[in-house]
């Protein structure tokens, strides 16, 4: 019935960036979302359907050839850590009412699409290549005072890994920001999830590298609170502002209590 040309994928334009400081090389890739063939392949690999906006060809990579060390952030490895057992599965706010309603009408439909964590929550902290120099637990903090200085930014990028609207029940988003200054760099990978009427969830991984000393500090922080608690805290704001505030991950982040904190360090130099 169709006389269209064979399915053409979108042009594979990469608007990523790259910068080198001494032996350190930073590269970002920003390409179109996966096409249907790539989505099929990823679905087979993962065993679950990927999020609706899947930037499977995007990545952020920091490497040092001399030290034989690198770390990269990509969607596939982040999604491999999503729960596929259905054990930590959330339900949308109106699920109970919906189930009651439908049971009366369609008792015959019982098959549930394979349960998995459809919010795509992940504790991914990047993929490290070089196991000879493992991270160690540490009390050292990322030196934020150094990062607050207005040093020139040689490279800044904001790279999406995936996003899903949870079928109009909120948002899940995993993205990586990077800024490279002359002497150091900072990466912030953030997973932000809002399930309307149910929960807010944040998973931040910060990676700091001091080029001169080869010191690498990685901090992982999980924050979480109920939707009701966050919403109640917003009543001082004008009602017209609230919908956009509920989408603002930086604004919400400060309002969520920390539920997990890990710091690791490795000295490569």
């Amino acid at each position, binding site marked *: 019935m169709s006389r269209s040309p064979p399915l053409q994928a979108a042009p594979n334009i990469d608007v990523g960036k790259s910068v080198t400081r001494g032996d350190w090389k930073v590269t970002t890739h920003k390409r179109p979302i996966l096409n249907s063939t790539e989505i099929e392949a990823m679905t087979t690999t993962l065993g679950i359907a990927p999020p609706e906006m899947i930037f499977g060809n995007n990545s952020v990579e920091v490497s040092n050839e001399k030290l034989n060390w690198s770390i990269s952030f990509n969607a596939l490895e982040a999604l491999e850590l999503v729960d596929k057992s259905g054990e930590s599965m959330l339900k*949308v706010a109106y699920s109970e009412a919906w189930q009651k*309603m439908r049971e009366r009408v369609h008792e015959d439909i019982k098959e549930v699409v394979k349960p998995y964590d459809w919010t795509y929550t992940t504790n991914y902290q990047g993929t490290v290549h070089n196991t000879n120099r493992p991270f160690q637990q540490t009390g050292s903090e990322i030196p934020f005072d150094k990062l607050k200085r207005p040093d020139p930014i040689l490279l800044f990028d904001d790279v999406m890994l995936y996003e899903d609207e949870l079928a109009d029940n909120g948002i899940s988003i995993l993205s990586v920001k990077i800024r490279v200054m002359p002497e150091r760099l900072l990466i912030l990978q953030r997973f932000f999830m809002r399930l309307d009427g149910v929960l807010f969830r944040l998973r931040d991984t910060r990676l700091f590298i001091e080029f001169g000393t080869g010191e690498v500090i990685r901090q992982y922080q999980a924050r979480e609170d109920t939707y009701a608690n966050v919403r109640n805290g917003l009543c001082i704001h004008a009602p017209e502002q609230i919908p956009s505030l509920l989408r603002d991950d930086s604004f919400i982040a400060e309002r969520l209590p920390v539920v997990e904190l890990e710091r690791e360090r490795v000295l490569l130099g």
Partner: protein
Amino acid sequence: MSESNVVQIMAPVTVVGDIHGQFFDMLEIFKIAGYCPDTNYLFLGDYVDRGLFSVETISLLVCLKLRWPSRVYLIRGNHESRGVTQSYGFYTECSRKYGNANVWRHFTDMFDFLTLSVVINNDIFCVHGGLSPSIHSIDQIKVIDRFREIPHEGPMADLVWSDPDPDRDEFSLSPRGAGYTFGAQVVKKFLEVNNQSHILRAHQLCQEGYQLLFDGLLSTVWSAPNYCYRCGNLASVLEVDYHGPLYYNVFEAAPENSEHRDAAAQQQDTGAVVEYFL
């Protein structure tokens, strides 16, 4: 307002999928596929949210509908709802552009009148999302009371929300705890019972701009290129002739978008602006 829940129209007609406030890309559609009223149009819903120009997009579409009511048809999508537009941008855009939510209120009141489905040439069934286990015959759609907010459950919700699942035969429950997917046998049976040859829907992003499923019995049309100004996807409109086959007219994002890229970046944090994040 007086349109049925199932509007019967004849080809030729150009069918448009999700636009999501990407106004300049919608203008690109008119350049590529023809202006009203020389080209007849059927829009499958999701006019607002996500993009920067939902107000402009829905305003133009409503004007076209009022000017040429029998040459322009607008189906309701899941985003043409009070609840969803508060979460995904249209409410915020109206409040910012007009200083209050009145315009949003009037538009969302208007959404209650949009029709739910269209049949082209007695042969192609068009809907925003997909099929419902409550709907076996197209006639059952006609009795839905559609002049209301889109509910969470029931046939009206299913028509704007459900997705096809090519790996299954029947209806299945979504793992989210609400909503259905529909499989190959459901599609075949629906087409047979209603004497139709094809289901045409929108609702799902596809990188190539369209997707054919179930051996070509169902197609998804997506009309927002470079969705959210960062997905890099193609878009398409589907041209339906009276006798001829379906033609997917594929297009890329409009050049005008680059002028608005900085605004998009600032508003949506897409990263064109250097930032001292911590």
